Every structure is written in C-alpha cells, then in structure tokens.
C-alpha cells in the first residue's frame, strides 16, 4: 500500500513549500502520497502558538491524516513519544530545502531516521 508522507513547512505552497525544522511549532504540513508525489493535503498548524502541547497536538494531526512517515528538522520529547505511539516514522532533513527536495532525498536514502 502506498505510504503517506508529511513534511513540516513554514508556509504551505505545494511541493515548493519550505521545510520548517520544528515539528510541533511548524507553520503547517504538506501531506503527500509517496508513490505519485501527489499532494493530498495542505494543513495549517493551529497548535503552533500553544504555550504547551503543540507537539502532541501536531502528532494527533498526523494520525488523523493517516501519515506513515513524517519529515521535519527535529522533534520534541513529547512529540516523539506521541508519534511513536501512533506508529509514525520520524525522519530529519536539513533546513533550507523544499518539500520536493525532501522527498527526493528520502527516496535517495540521504535522510536520517530520528
């Protein structure tokens, strides 16, 4: 079955969206079908400004979107626990790349597991 990938982004603009290195406090998420690279959803992160609980909230959002793989810069301890609970694979990518480039690097085996 095709896997669903989400990438944390600072603003949503399809495959050109810039990667946001913060998972829980990212501006939004681009949800992509791995095989076809089709953008299935562009999500705003309504938890970004929360004083606490942004990470667990964002993890819940990944679960609702049936995300299998999440690419971000780093994951906070509670976000990590919540994503692991939901069975979402965490991968890290460097800042300054786009969603499209992150997908290319994941496919090329150039990203690291968190």
């Amino acid at each position, binding site marked *: 079955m095709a896997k669903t990938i989400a990438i944390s982004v600072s603003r949503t603009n399809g495959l050109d969206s810039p990667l946001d290195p913060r998972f829980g406090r990212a501006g939004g998420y681009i949800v992509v079908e791995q095989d076809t690279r089709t953008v299935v959803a562009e999500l705003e992160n309504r*938890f970004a400004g929360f004083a606490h609980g942004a990470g667990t909230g964002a993890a819940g959002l990944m679960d609702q979107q049936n995300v299998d793989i999440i690419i971000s810069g780093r994951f906070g301890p509670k976000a990590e626990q919540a994503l692991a609970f939901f069975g979402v694979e965490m991968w890290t990518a460097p800042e300054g790349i786009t969603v499209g480039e992150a997908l290319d690097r994941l496919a090329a085996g150039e990203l690291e597991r968190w």
Partner: protein
Amino acid sequence: MIVAVASGKGGTGKTLVATSLALLWAEQEREVTYLDADVEEPNGHLFLEPEIQVEERCGVPVPTLGTQLCGGHAECQRICSFNAIIASKRNVVVFPELCHGCGACVHACPEGFLMEETRSIGTLRIGTAVDPEIGYGAGEIDVGEARAAPLIERVVRRATRLDGPTIIDAPPGTSCNAKAAIEHADLVLLVTEPTPFGLHDLALTVRLTEALDLKVAAVINRADVGDGKVRDFIDGKGIPLLAEIPFDWTVAEAYARSKHAFEESASFREKIADIGSKLLELGGIAS
C-alpha cells in the same frame, strides 16, 4: 486586607518590599501573615526564618487508564484543549505535565475507560516566624512542573480566611501563575524599576490588573537609576505612587546576606513605614 506584591519584571524588589512590610506590620503588633506565592523560587523564608508546623503535598487530578478496554473513540483527544491526551484505535497516552486537571476526558469517554488519580505537583508549608510574630505560608513547585497555578491557589486560599493584613509575594510575569496569586487581593502593590524592561512588564501587569478589575498602587524601587518613563506611565494611569526608593548599597548588602534591610538602613525603614501606612489607609484600616 490582602495585599499582593507583584511586578511583571523579575528582580524589581518584590520580596524585599513584601518581607519588609510583614516585619513592619508585625512590629506594629498587627496580626500579619506573609504568603509566598512565588512557588517557582520561594525565598521569603530566607528573611523571615519561619518555623514550619505543617508540610503537605499538593496535587492535581490527572486521567489514568482503567481496567476496561479502550474503545478507540478518541473522544478524550477531541475534547482536550491542551493536547494532554492522545488516542489510537485501541489505547490512549496521557501527558500529565500538559494536563490541566479539568476532567473533561474522563467525562467524555463513552467506555468509562478513563479514571482520575491525583498527581503531586508541589509542597505547601505553613508556619510562624517569631520575633516579631508573622504567620507564614508558602508553596514550592516540584522541579520540572510547568503549571503552578493549582498550588498557588492553595497558598492564596489561606489569605481569604485570615483577619489581619496579609501579604502575598506574587510571582513575576502575567501568566496564570501571576493571576492566581493576585486575583483575590484587595490591593495589588506593583513594585517596579525605572528601566525599559521595568516599564514594559509593568504595563503588561497593569493590563492584567485592569482585566481582573483590581485596585493597584505602585512603588518605584532603585528610583534613581534609569529614566522618568515609568513614573510618567504610573502618573498617566492615575495609579497612586506610594514611594520611590533610591538605590542603597546598605539595603543591597543586607538583602544579599538575608538580613532585614530596614534594620540596617534608617532611610529604607522610613520608606517602608510610609508604604505601610499608605497601604493601610488605602485598605481602610487605621494606622
């Protein structure tokens, strides 16, 4: 009368003013109580050296998993405003540090799977300082706890049951912690300093007191440093300015050695006496 000593900015002299007022009123043979609501770093005890009579742990309710099976409805996750509980198809995970203890998840669970237990977050201490006699209460939050308001509420609740003047040493800032410390006060004494940071945070705290509809008065500490903008702000808001305390090495040294500053500086004692009588006047108590 309950006076909350608050500041906005940290390090402006809240504890100095609060403990000095407690000592002053105790010398005047008033039945004074000092409550340290700055639970992240309570330090009033260093100056008052109270004997602790009661020490108890203070807790908040958190959801815990019961013996029923989770139905995977995720109602708990949906209702939680703080993302403190997350649910998969067959189980839930609770993040106790994020939980505000409202109990909504327990209520929302259609399976009756969630229950409530008490999680300790800090310690409440009650005692008395002798010579002069001062009632003492303080909270100390456990290291790593993010939310101290429930513990502060426990400390402050004592104030509402006391007759004599009560001084609440509030935490800095304008968060839930600060709100919990000042909301039951008859008067909020704002201790500030004439610096840009002092002014910025004072303005925020004044907004908080306005939102809570609280009576305020102000003291400018280290009044001879910085500029006149804090004074202009206080005047512009029509806030009674009870005193301007100049910087004084004697006071700073006494305070650093946890001594009673007003026993070592006559001019500082005068300022505190002035603040004390004006506060009693504002509170409608004959001095």
